């Protein structure tokens, strides 16, 4: 069965390592914070200028001067630091963030990603996404594998304007965990109960399936 949003977040959280500085994008990536294993510690970077993001505030703690990149009220974790936007992106662009998780409309076999506009229909703006994909070595894209109508979002070539070129190496969809290398998708894991054939069918770009593909473990 396809993963829920929470399960996607849960699987991504397994990729976290002790001592990681992590930037979580808006949407599903934000949920990853709820599944950080208790055995490790990570610090969350919010690109509006906060390293060490804590949980949402209680009503009493709400502070209009303390928000995350999704404009949600948050708190600071112990050991947090605050900085301006140029410093924040210096961190990101300079490759100091260990893992970035963000959403997308499409990715393709060359590691291109499209996530910020649908010409003539929707222009949200790229926010910090272009900086994040260009700055990070280690990125996980979370997305649904295909549209409601069964149209693949894992393509030979992105059709929408790109957010970044050749920068995505790992994709976690509701169906599969996939690596991108050598101009191909490589199937690493499948969602519990989802068969390889279904994933193949819903993946437009060439998908390499090597040996037995394990189910994700939760």
């Amino acid at each position, binding site marked *: 069965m396809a993963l829920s949003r929470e399960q996607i977040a849960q699987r991504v959280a397994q990729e976290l390592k002790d001592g990681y500085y992590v930037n979580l994008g808006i949407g599903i990536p934000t949920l990853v914070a709820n599944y950080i294993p*208790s055995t490790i510690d990570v610090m969350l970077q919010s690109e*509006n200028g906060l390293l060490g993001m804590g949980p949402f505030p209680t009503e009493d703690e709400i502070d209009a001067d303390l928000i995350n990149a999704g404009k949600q009220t948050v708190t600071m974790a112990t050991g947090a630091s*605050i900085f*301006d936007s*140029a410093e924040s992106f210096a961190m990101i662009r300079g490759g100091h963030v260990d893992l970035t998780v963000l959403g997308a409309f499409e990715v393709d076999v060359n590691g291109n990603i499209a996530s910020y506009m649908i010409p003539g229909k929707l222009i949200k703006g790229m*926010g910090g996404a272009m900086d994040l994909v260009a700055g990070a070595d280690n990125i996980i894209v979370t997305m649904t594998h295909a549209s409601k109508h069964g149209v693949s979002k894992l393509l030979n070539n992105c059709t929408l304007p*790109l957010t970044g070129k050749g920068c995505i190496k790992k994709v976690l969809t509701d169906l599969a965990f996939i690596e991108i290398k050598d101009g191909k998708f490589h199937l690493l894991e499948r969602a519990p109960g989802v068969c390889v054939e279904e994933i193949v069918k819903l993946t437009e770009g060439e998908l390499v399936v090597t040996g037995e593909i394990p189910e994700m473990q939760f």
Partner: protein
Amino acid sequence: MAGFDKVVSSYEEAMAGLTDNMTVIAGGFGLCGIAENLIAEIKRKGTKGLTVVSNNCGVDDFGLGVLLTNRQIKKIVASYVGENAEFERQMMAGELEVELTPQGTLAEKMRAGGAGIPAFYTATGVGTPVAIGKEERSFNGRDYILEEAITGDFAIVKAWKADRYGNLVFRKTARNFNPLAASAGKITVVEVEEIVEVGELDPDQIHTPGIYVNRVIKGTFEKRIEQRTTRPADKQQVKGEL
């Protein structure tokens, strides 16, 4: 030190000299750390044809959004349209010129403007619509595009505290683009919650030195919240959890 006293007493005085078709750089991220009353004063003045440089453009009825609704803005340089319906409508209808700029590039363009760096290379935007018309160049085997600095005729900035010399301290994530905007304005106007005596701010802890600041005014702020997210009061702070 009369020559260094930056404090003005009226919003009219604070925004004196702003005229049609000027470029205004605004601090703030969403509605956090925005110069609410300086924006209101620009609305009151009715200055038209403005180019506004700001990460966002407020919401429909608050922040820079009020200048959009009031048709005072000709062009916006921003990274995120997001939650502003009027912004999106004017942009899609071609009534508003929009230069979508990646957030980090926007921040760096402001910093460069303030720092006398006319242009810099960045990997951000390579191979995307942002790269169109820009020089691409390789350094150490990686591709980058050339981005130019931004400066403004005015910068409008929100800080927490200032002293009379214009030394500024920001508070929490209301800092965001504000120090960068402050550095990049020909005339930098700062709205603060508190004006303290010169010497009260620890020199080691001043975020923006007064040399970047031309005018300071004390304001009162609504500080509207866009996404009021909370956890139950009886719930312990769990590590990292949102």
